[in-house]
């Protein structure tokens, strides 16, 4: 059963983006070289970028439908987004960052959910720090926790490891795998690194110059190794 269905077109400067794919539960890798339009697709799913034409649906909710004039604003989509640069709020502590989504949707505090995510990502000792005082790896773990604690229906991860060194990459990947297996939230994971995706992806959508060129299982990543994408 497909969870997410994307069928969008948009002219982005010289790039003529036309992308159509379905994503099932598990982690769907959006894979391709830089400039292929991966981030734009993810931004459209999140509602931060409006497609020219097409539709986006999550479970049985239509998030966007150009023909029907439907465009659910990002703050009502309940889609967690982990950005490449973390984008933690610099004026808030780690704890306040983690709590932000709950406060904005006016839900009552849920101490057990909070404790579970903090334990999963092992960010307990960081709670009272400011984002400035965190290492790159810690920052991305907090960013993942913040997105998880808003109880997302879907989690978007846009090159969450790209800004990290090798050591931090190795540090974070196990958490993401744990997340995929334990939290049960479907994920769309954007990367141009085959090795990273091999660890996390359950299915793969390959994007080239704004078009889907292949969709299927993780074996698609092996073919890509020869293309100097890895």
């Amino acid at each position: 059963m497909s969870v997410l269905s994307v069928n969008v077109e948009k002219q982005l400067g010289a790039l003529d983006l036309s992308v159509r794919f379905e994503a099932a539960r598990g982690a769907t890798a959006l894979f391709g070289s830089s400039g292929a339009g991966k981030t734009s697709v993810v931004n459209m799913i999140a509602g931060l970028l409006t497609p020219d034409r097409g539709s986006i649906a999550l479970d049985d909710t239509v998030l966007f439908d150009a023909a029907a004039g439907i465009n659910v604003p990002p703050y009502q989509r309940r889609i967690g987004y982990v950005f490449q640069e973390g984008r933690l709020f610099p004026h808030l502590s780690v704890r306040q960052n983690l709590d932000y989504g709950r406060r904005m949707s006016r839900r009552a505090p849920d101490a057990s959910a909070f404790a579970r995510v903090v334990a999963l990502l092992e960010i307990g000792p960081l709670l009272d720090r400011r984002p400035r005082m965190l290492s790159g790896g810690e920052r991305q773990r907090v960013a993942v926790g913040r997105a998880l604690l808003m109880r997302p229906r879907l989690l978007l991860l846009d090159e969450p490891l790209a800004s990290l060194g090798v050591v931090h990459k190795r540090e974070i990947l196990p958490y993401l795998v744990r997340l995929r297996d334990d939290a049960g939230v479907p994920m769309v994971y954007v990367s141009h690194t085959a090795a990273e995706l091999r660890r996390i992806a359950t299915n793969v959508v390959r994007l080239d110059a704004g078009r889907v060129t292949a969709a299927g299982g993780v074996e698609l990543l092996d073919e890509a190794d020869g293309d100097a994408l890895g």
Partner: protein
Amino acid sequence: MLNLSPAEWTAIELSLRIAIVATACALPFGIAVGWLLARKNFWGKTALDGLVHLPLVLPPVVTGYLLLISFGRKGPIGAFLDEYFGIVFSFRWTGAALASAVMGFPLMVRPIRLALEAIDRRLEDAAATLGANHLLVFLTITLPLALPGTIAGVVLCFARALGEFGATITFVSNIPGETQTISAAIYTFIQVPGGDAAAAGLVLIAIVLALAALIASEWLARRAAIRFHGE
């Protein structure tokens, strides 16, 4: 230490009241205009920008005169406010506050606008994905991040309002106990031969108040920086 007459204390109290009221009333408008100029493109933006900065380049006497003919009892805006809201500016301390606010406004808007322009808009996108609507994004992300610039704008406007002279005296004259601020009182003293000694106390007070405003702004800015950067 300072041997000030009751009239001088009145001038000091009046100056502070005028400056505080002027700054407080200007602040919401300063944030709104700073936000419009930083974030929006609209027809007449250049005109609004020019209008806001006009008091900075116009002779204060001209600004005061323009206030007089528009906000005076017989002026179009003044007559309207008097009739429907009972608000009178002419020859009242409220008029002095209006003149001070208008003169301080460009100094307030500029740092607020710069602070808003410097904010990473991607943080606002992140807040939106976390469920914050436009108003909540503004209140919880935009405004706190623009706080240092807002503090700078408030202090500059306050200092300008405290020292405002030309526009105020043109608009609401120099009435002891109503519109005679520290500046106007000093001016009155030194118009009289041998009044220098009498003016000295107020001059000292003016210096102390200006320094206090500067120190307060430094302190507030440092606290805001510590909140943001956790040092």
